[in-house]
């Protein structure tokens, strides 16, 4: 494929957490040490190459960065200290911007100020809503519940779904991947299975505990979403639902707390380098589980009316999470990675059909 070299690509990636691109001398150690690479899916080295040469289209059309789960083995064994694992992470942040049609993802990654203003605006909006509702518990909770459903619909329908299509366009259509129709159907099972389990990461050197922890967070988070939004946890009187909510809320805040501690300790390769977006993601996920838990405790102890401010905080956290972090922040890695695995499956089927692998 002919494409123009874009010398500014490296400069642009610097804004997404990239530190250095020039250390790599292309020995191929990183690709070979990675347990997830296979014929036709050679990373991280080829990604570094595309970056160094400024091959913007190749980079944007590659699913490879999403196939990496950041075990850090490439960085540990890299003879040049080029840190390929973190480089892949920076490329993922950049890709999030590439897919996003609104341009906000890129803006928030590049500018801390913009992100800060966004957070403040959402905070003001939530307080304003509280003011309009005269700070009445029932009215506010009713609003909160409706708001959650609307945000989910809007974020998925207007932002994430078009982004996924954009990603499909860049990685499959523009790259001229000719996969058989059957692969599109069989791949769906792959997609669903990976969304929930992310079991590919079990192949990584970091072992099964990291996978298990991540798996519990994903399941906990999805269940918490389900319990609060569809089972209306805060207004229900059903004991089973109440307890279910407590359990999943507890899981989310306990494990995210552990994630935060890990990032503070920096003992493992995966937790050594934290971009602001990584911090925001784990901290807000933690706050989400934690505030939900507290609010329900207050409801059960009939203290909520006197402590409505806590519910408002919860609402602020939810609104910031739902409006800013889910569509434009690190949350999207959950979605893009799952779809990347689907698209990679298509690419693999196409390569197989060509007899290339």
């Amino acid at each position, binding site marked *: 494929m002919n494409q123009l070299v874009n010398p500014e690509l490296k400069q642009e990636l610097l804004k997404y957490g990239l530190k250095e691109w020039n250390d790599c001398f292309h020995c*191929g*150690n990183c690709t*070979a040490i990675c347990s997830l690479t296979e014929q036709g899916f050679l990373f991280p080295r080829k990604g570094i190459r595309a970056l160094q040469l400024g091959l913007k289209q190749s980079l944007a059309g590659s699913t490879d960065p999403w196939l990496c789960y950041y075990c850090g083995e490439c960085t540990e064994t890299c003879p040049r*200290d080029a840190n390929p694992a973190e480089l892949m992470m920076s490329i993922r942040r950049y890709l999030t911007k590439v897919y996003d049609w609104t341009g906000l993802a890129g803006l928030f990654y590049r500018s801390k100020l913009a992100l800060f203003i966004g957070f403040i605006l959402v905070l003001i909006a939530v307080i304003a809503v509280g003011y309009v509702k005269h700070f009445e518990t029932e009215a506010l909770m009713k609003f909160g519940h409706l708001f959650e459903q609307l945000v989910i619909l809007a974020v998925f329908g207007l932002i994430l779904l078009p982004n996924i299509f954009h990603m499909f366009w860049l990685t499959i259509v523009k790259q001229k991947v000719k996969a058989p129709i059957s692969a599109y159907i069989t791949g769906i099972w792959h997609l669903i299975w990976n969304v929930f389990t992310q079991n590919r990461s079990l192949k990584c050197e970091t072992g099964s505990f990291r996978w298990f922890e991540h798996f519990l967070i994903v399941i906990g988070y999805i269940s918490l979403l389900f319990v609060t939004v569809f089972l209306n946890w805060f207004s229900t009187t059903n004991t089973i639902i109440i307890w279910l909510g407590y359990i999943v809320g507890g899981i989310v805040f306990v494990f995210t707390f552990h994630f935060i501690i890990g990032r503070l300790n920096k003992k493992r390769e995966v937790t050594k380098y934290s971009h602001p977006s990584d911090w925001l993601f784990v901290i807000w996920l933690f706050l989400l589980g934690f505030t939900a838990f507290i609010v329900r405790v207050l409801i059960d102890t009939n203290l909520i009316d006197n402590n409505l401010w806590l519910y408002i905080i919860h609402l602020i956290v939810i609104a910031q999470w739902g409006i800013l972090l889910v569509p434009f922040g690190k949350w999207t890695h959950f979605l893009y990675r799952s779809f990347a695995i689907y698209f990679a499956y298509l690419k693999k089927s196409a390569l197989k059909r060509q007899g290339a692998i």
Partner: protein
Amino acid sequence: MGENLLTAVYFCGISNEHAEIIDIAEVAAYTKTISLVGEIWHQKDFPVIDPDEVAAKIRGDGIKRIVITGYQPGMFKSFFTKAMVQAGNDPGDVFLACFGEFGAYKRADTERAKAILACAIYGVSFEEAASPEEVDTSLDTLVIGGGIAGIQASLEIANGNQKVYLVERTGTIGGHMAMFDKTFPTLDCAACILTPKMVEVGQHPNIDLMTYCEVKDVTGEPGNYKVKILQKARRVDLATCIGCGTCSEKCPRKAVSEFDADTTLRKAIYIPFPQAVPNKYLIDADNCTYVENGKCGVCAKVCPVPDCINLDEQDELVEVTVGNIIVATGFKVFDAKRIERYGYGKYPNVVTSLEFERLVNAAGPTSGDITFRTQDKKKNWIFAPEGNKPKSIALIHCIGSRDENYHKYCSKVCCMYSLKLAHLVKEKLPDAEVYEYYIDMRSFGKGYQEFYERIKNEGVNIIRGRTAKIDQDGDKLLLRSEDIVGDRLIEQSVDMAILAVGLEPREDTTEIGEMLGISIDSDGWFNEVNYVSDPVDTFTGGITVAGVCQGPKDIPDTVAQASAAASRVLQSILKGKIRKSIKELSLESIEKRAKELSIIMEGQL
């Protein structure tokens, strides 16, 4: 006159927080005492060097010369040259005073740093200004290390009719080269080149060969070094031993053979290898039953020469006086066990290149047959002639070299010796598949690139991509690598893998450096005065370096450097005079000389 050249000194990139590095505050304070110096600038005051801004400063202060100093002053030269031009001055008046270039690295070298800077301020070269006086010298020379470098240097001097003491730590001279089968790129037999030289050393009337000896202490000064040499107890009389081998035959104790790179066993009384010089036996006290508990002595009983074996012999200290010392202590190979993912030490068929050199050597443990490691009765993994032959062999380059986690430097010889080994495999096992995994093929040197082309044409699969790991898969080894040129992932199954281990300084390099008063670079090799223009002298008068102990190099370079070192020694012997150490020159004398030189230079213009 020089006094008119108002000078600004720019200190780059260093803070005083490190206790180990040169004390910049002290150097700066000293600089102020030189009348030429008008301004002192520190990098911290110049976050960005803007030539326009600097030019304005130069004009404002009437500065005519700029000296940039620090560990890497060259980085800033272009900015200041530009500024000088803009200010209408001579761009040639930007001088560099690089601490490291003349051996000032640590805090203890602060005086040296001052002298380097003073010379630059006067616009004269340090080498010229710091020229020490000459004193009478003893005509004898000490050579430390009996590898090819030590042998070559000793012969050069001895053939000039001068006395040489050649001190070797092990029981024989020959060093690493004696272990090799062939030399690249000519594929000459290493022994055929080396052994005649070894014999010449052994028989030379001017060489006092001291094997199984260690230099313990060096005192005195250039031209008159008093050297204490420890003659370790050999327990076999060199003069009377006839080398019949009866003792070794009957000896009940075994130990690993250093000469065979620990791949075979030898007896506790042994001769390192059949062509050893001196060709006499010695006892390895660490593995001798008699030395341990006094309950053996078989060797002494069976020895046909009376009183030849003296099991109770003690170490002895010998003292010699020499004028010059050549350091040729060599290297050791990188310990491949440090990189666990290659499985060396865990999988028997992962071998190092040095082990393979012995294996493929016609005088080696298998008479040159390439076989797998086998286990002897006591479960030791050894090379033995009865082992099976591999059908596929992989060579992996850059083990421990060019790796930030181990050694950053390129070991310089591995590419070429790997190609040579690939050739030897093809020669001995024509049907075997050979795979070579490299990062960059460094075939510099006369005939080297041609050698590479030749090996490619011999059907060796040469793949660009570093193997990341080796796993055992049944009897086979599984290598995982990226073929960068072929754009694919290779999972290669082979019978044997050879790790092309790099070269590293010996463990006792620091100790020897301290004993001789010579400095060591950041990689651990001995420092020369100037890598480009003075590659054999050290900052200590009368002490020269040769061979790999100064930095990785191949045999031709080692031989050349050894001859160069010998020529330096012969120079002083012919004159009967030797230069004292630069490091002993006082700062005042260097500064005074620099000032004089600058006045002379001024007069010449």
